């Protein structure tokens, strides 16, 4: 446990007597804590309170009247029990995990491939890759609306697939293909971000190392695995964490694309939370789904932290 210190350098000629120095440091420390003030207030009001409210909602019989009267009889874990008794919850759990894991993996692999492509120097390589950010900028409601029409049974994608001989169907209407379709759309919207970040990170890989390895006879794959990936690993791990959390929380994309259908084949915990709260006005159940989702996120964060701490210890 170290005492609070500031990063100061010992500037020659700026030697200050001990007592003055300590109180200057203390004053500066106080100022810095003051800078944290607005953020702390913001955090308490807009994160901590809603979190507490969410716990409150999920453990009470929360009705629309509660918003007015503030009264909500405590029901303990009844909401959670009700939620876990529904078969659709487990479908949602499975879907949420599937979407998240598959999306992140695909985004990592394809993102890296795209980044490697864009890292090459060729005519137009300075500005062409920027265009790929376009899908990422679109609001989720726009992405979902456009893709809904693209994936229609008689839509353009099926026109193309049909003309090259691939059997087509209405992807969003078949319970077996709807979830993969949702994943495709989600990846389409997020991949540009991965490609751009990884592309910027690739520039940090020291060229001399790569050249040296090439001269030593290392093939492209070897170079990738032994030099490139370890160098950009910190970037990859940050992207993975951000992406997992973001994908777990997706609501609007699925809501607009399939509304959880067909036959509840694309329900996620986030969607069920929305459905219960804002379509059925069952806020207790909505809160319970929300807490479940939060629990999964926290679990992931714990697992991730443990794994990265272990990794650091090994190194």
């Amino acid at each position: 446990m170290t005492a609070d210190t500031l990063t100061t350098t010992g500037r020659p000629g700026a030697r200050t007597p001990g007592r003055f120095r300590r109180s200057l440091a203390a004053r500066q420390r106080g100022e810095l804590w003051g800078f944290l003030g607005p953020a702390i207030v913001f955090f308490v009001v807009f994160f901590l309170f809603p979190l507490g409210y969410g716990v409150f909602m999920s453990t009470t019989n929360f009705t629309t009247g509660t918003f007015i009267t503030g009264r909500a009889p405590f029901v303990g874990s009844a909401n959670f029990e009700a939620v876990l008794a529904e078969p659709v919850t487990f479908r949602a759990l499975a879907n949420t995990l599937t979407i998240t894991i598959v999306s992140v993996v695909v985004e990592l692999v394809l993102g890296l491939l795209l980044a490697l492509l864009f890292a090459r120097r060729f005519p137009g390589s300075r500005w062409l890759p920027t265009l790929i950010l376009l899908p990422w900028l679109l609001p989720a409601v726009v992405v979902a609306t456009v893709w809904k029409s693209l994936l229609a049974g008689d839509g353009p994608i099926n026109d193309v697939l049909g003309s090259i001989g691939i059997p087509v169907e209405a992807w969003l209407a078949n319970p077996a293909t709807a979830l993969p379709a949702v994943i495709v759309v989600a990846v389409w919207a997020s991949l540009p971000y991965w490609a751009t970040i990884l592309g910027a990170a690739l520039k940090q890989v020291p060229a001399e190392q790569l050249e040296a390895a090439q001269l030593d006879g290392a093939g492209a794959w070897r170079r990738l695995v032994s030099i490139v990936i370890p160098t950009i690993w910190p970037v990859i791990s940050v992207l993975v964490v951000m992406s997992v959390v973001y994908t777990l929380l997706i609501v609007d994309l699925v809501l607009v694309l399939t509304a959880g259908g067909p036959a509840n084949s694309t329900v996620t915990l986030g969607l069920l939370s929305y459905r219960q709260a804002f379509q059925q006005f069952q806020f207790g159940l909505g809160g319970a789904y929300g807490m479940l989702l939060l629990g999964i996120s926290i679990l992931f964060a714990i697992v991730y932290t443990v794994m990265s701490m272990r990794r650091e210890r090994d190194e």
Partner: protein
Amino acid sequence: MASTAQRLRRVALPAAGLTAALALTACSGGQAAPAATDGFDGVSLTVWNSIDFEPYQGLQKQYFESCAADLGITVDVETQSGDYTTKLLQAAGAKSLPDVALLSTDTQLPQLASQGVLADLGQYQITTDGLADSVAGLGTYQDTLYGLPVQVEDYAIFYNKAAFAAAGVSETAPKTFDDLVTLAGSLTTADQKGIVLPGIAGDGSTPVYFLPFLLSAGGDPADPTGAGSVAAVDLYKNLVANGSLSSEFVNWGWDSIDQWTSQKAALTVSGPWNLVDTSIPFEWGTFPFPTAKPGESSKVNLLGYVYGAAANSDAKKEAAAAALIKCRASEENQIDTAVQGGYIPALKTAQDAFVQKVPAAAPFVDAVDGAYNSAQLGTEWNTLQQQYVDAIQAATVGGQTAQAALEQASGK
């Protein structure tokens, strides 16, 4: 087109219902003592409408101002946009309700009436004569008449005449569900499906158009696993099975009508607003709903628009408001609104006149008598809606039987 913005708002904004439900305030107004007064000189009233587009908006102003002139009073007609229900409830709480207000019978009327802020129109010689029982019932709450219905909304089957001609099928209405399945099957070609219906969850369209089938099969909407519900879900299943209803219907909501207007489907269900849609590029007609078994009569769900008066301690004002409502609900006004806006009139005589002018409105009008007031399900309807959608989807693209799908969806 008349109902553009109304459909726009009503269909796509689920949370609007939340704020409506949440704006309940605790205050309630008092009931004024009845007084028979004529001669309303000097009285000035405010009127609120919620349908804020032409021609409806302009027509309302016209009707009210002309009625006001007849009664010797002045009126200020305001059109409210946005969440009308919340506005009404907040005004009720602040004791600043308008003297006369347009109310929908599935949400606004019951909520305001239950708070005691509406005047009992029965005291002012306002009767429900000339209205079918089902329509009269729309304006009552606990047996008191709080709103005089001026127009109603129910549903019918629309068909594309050219599709019938092309298939060599005569334009007779299907009498039973099996007839409908056969008919839709015979109208299905490579480029055109026999029928299109909405099937998506969440936007409210699927249950609204499913209810007439459920009701016509003798079912009770509050009983998802009853025989009527099973028959209705089975109908959807059969329609998908014989290829006349595209399995993509599970992705379509209110926009499913696009399939019909672009001639990708021959049959569909819609409301009276479709009667006055001049953009439909082909000749069309209407049918009533079929029933599950031969010889029964079909039934639809009904919702209405009424004018109510705020309970007012000033007896003269309250009486004036009632008189204004009575005048507004006149036959000519109702026919006018129907022809221009696509609303079914409340008065039977007005309905008959409407059918004379727009013959395709006949199935709508015929179904009004004996129709089901969907308001009576209350808040339970929210949960039931999702259950029906789940069951429909599970039975059609999920491969389950109708009975099993309904049982699973309703948790029984």
